């Protein structure tokens, strides 16, 4: 089959001779991929920032597909079902899954205990090949995969596997109160979706901060929020203080993670010398920009080693920090309602549709933010077979 093949930092290709996936467990399914996305967090792998990212792996944790084959233990799916597959690999029975912490499943990641298994996200997230391929093995097929509701656009469905739930959960974890001022760092797809979802929770003011003008323009229209370029703000923390009568934002959301720009010290120690798990600039700003007693919600991805953040200010300000990988299965029923009611328009984020065979160019465009790219989907030639 054709599948994306990671060859090292900044090097990927589509290979035609990759082995087809097989049923390896009674609860597995094999899915023929119809849409897959490149996620902003895939770029952390692509840039070589996530430890135990092995050459030869296939990335891709956002995908939809048609069930081709199921293992003998699968009860809820049958061949021919068109499903959207949450990025979390979750057993549904461990104590964490029973608390709907599907991103923290205890039965899907051999290599690390902090996070559950994730499709195509290095061996630190379980060593599963992902969906940037024609076919993919889906473990625990009765738990995560959800049949796409009739009439739902596939482009909407594929964004329900990660972008929409992660953005929504960022706003949910922030515990937004009616009228709150919410500052979102990062105008990538997740940050834009978090800004959009903050309104659903009754935010009074939503501000998004980034440094890429075309994304800020996009965010203003798509998420109906204020958007500012931190390069022209000077000190974003001071800006937040001034615009909130020197109180600070009620809530700050970090939707950037380890590849933040904006601080020379963080960039050099985090991204160039790799002395920390990437640059924690956005998290720094979030902690310093939020009010005393406020909430910082983190959905930006950081590596597993450690980061320089002002933990003393967290203590002194009495902050609440909430963070987790999105629990996609938990959120899907509500999010499907929002999409069907027109309150959320996931496919409006998609700017690039690229054949799977051109995956090298697709990664480069997304990574370098060329051609006003917001969100890229990959379409295998077998999608319509």
């Amino acid at each position, binding site marked *: 089959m054709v599948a994306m093949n990671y060859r090292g930092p900044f090097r990927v290709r589509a290979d035609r001779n990759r082995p087809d996936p097989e049923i390896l467990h009674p609860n597995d399914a094999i899915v023929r991929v119809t849409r897959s996305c490149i996620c902003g967090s895939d770029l952390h792998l692509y840039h070589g920032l996530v430890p135990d990212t*092995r050459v030869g792996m296939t990335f891709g944790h956002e995908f939809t597909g048609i069930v081709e084959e199921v293992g003998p233990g699968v009860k809820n799916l049958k061949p021919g079902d068109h499903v959207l597959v949450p990025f979390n690999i979750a057993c549904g029975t461990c104590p964490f899954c029973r608390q709907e912490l599907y991103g923290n499943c205890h039965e899907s990641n*051999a290599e690390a205990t902090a996070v559950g298994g994730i499709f195509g996200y290095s061996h630190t997230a379980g060593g599963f090949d992902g969906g940037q391929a024609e076919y993919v093995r889906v473990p625990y097929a009765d738990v995560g995969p959800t049949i796409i509701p009739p009439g739902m656009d596939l482009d909407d469905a594929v964004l329900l596997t990660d972008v929409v739930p992660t953005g929504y959960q960022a706003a949910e974890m922030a515990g937004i109160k009616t009228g709150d001022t919410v500052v979102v760092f990062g105008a990538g797809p997740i940050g834009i979706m978090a800004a959009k979802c903050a309104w659903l929770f009754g935010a009074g003011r939503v501000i998004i901060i980034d440094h890429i003008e075309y994304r800020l323009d996009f965010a203003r229209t798509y998420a109906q929020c204020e958007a500012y370029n931190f390069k022209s703000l000077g000190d974003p923390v001071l800006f937040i203080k001034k615009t909130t009568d020197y109180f600070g934002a009620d809530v700050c959301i970090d939707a950037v993670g380890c590849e933040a720009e904006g601080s020379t010290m963080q960039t050099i120690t985090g991204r160039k010398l790799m002395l920390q798990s990437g640059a924690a600039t956005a998290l720094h700003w979030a902690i310093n920009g939020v009010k005393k007693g406020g909430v910082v919600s983190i959905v930006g991805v950081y590596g597993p080693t450690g980061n320089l953040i002002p933990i003393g200010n967290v203590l002194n300000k009495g902050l609440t920090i909430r963070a987790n990988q999105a629990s996609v299965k938990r959120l899907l029923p509500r999010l499907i309602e929002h999409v069907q009611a027109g309150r959320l328009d996931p496919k409006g984020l998609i700017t690039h549709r690229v054949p799977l065979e051109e995956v090298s160019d697709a990664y480069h465009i997304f990574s370098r933010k060329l051609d006003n790219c917001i969100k890229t989907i990959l379409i295998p030639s077998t999608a319509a077979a």
Partner: protein
Amino acid sequence: MENITENVVNEHSHIKGWGIDADPANEPTYPMKMYTGDDHRRMNYERPPMQPKNVEILQSNERPSLPAVFGTSTPPTGLSGKIRRYAFKFSEGSWGHWLPLMLADRVNVVEGIVDDLKQGYVPNIFKERGWNAEWKYNRNKAIQKIAIGVAVTSFLLTVLVYRKDNKSSN
């Protein structure tokens, strides 16, 4: 307070779905909201059937056993595999775990090129790095990079030739 809330509602009437998920009773919110106490039973729950292990899987030493399913992509091999096996002697809280894994990743890149060549495949590194897209959407920068590359290579070649000439004349 009521007036403030009423004003906020009116100000946002143009945003579809504004406030529809607002729930003052939603405290503590996720990830704590569904706490069941099941954690106290530790590993005493009905586990799914185990996936047969047919390839080498490196297991975190913070787990008592393999999980019921695991990924079988790219098992450890070669020098990078040896480094990875060493890394897994340390817990996830240790630099001794993560730094060797980063080193193994870099070694693995060289192994990948060697493997490609062994299979008679010469990797097109420019294509793999997406240079077609760079040329299409960022041509000035691409030309700049090529010019810098040519200049640096020419300079290095000139220095080498100059040194060689000097040595032979001595």
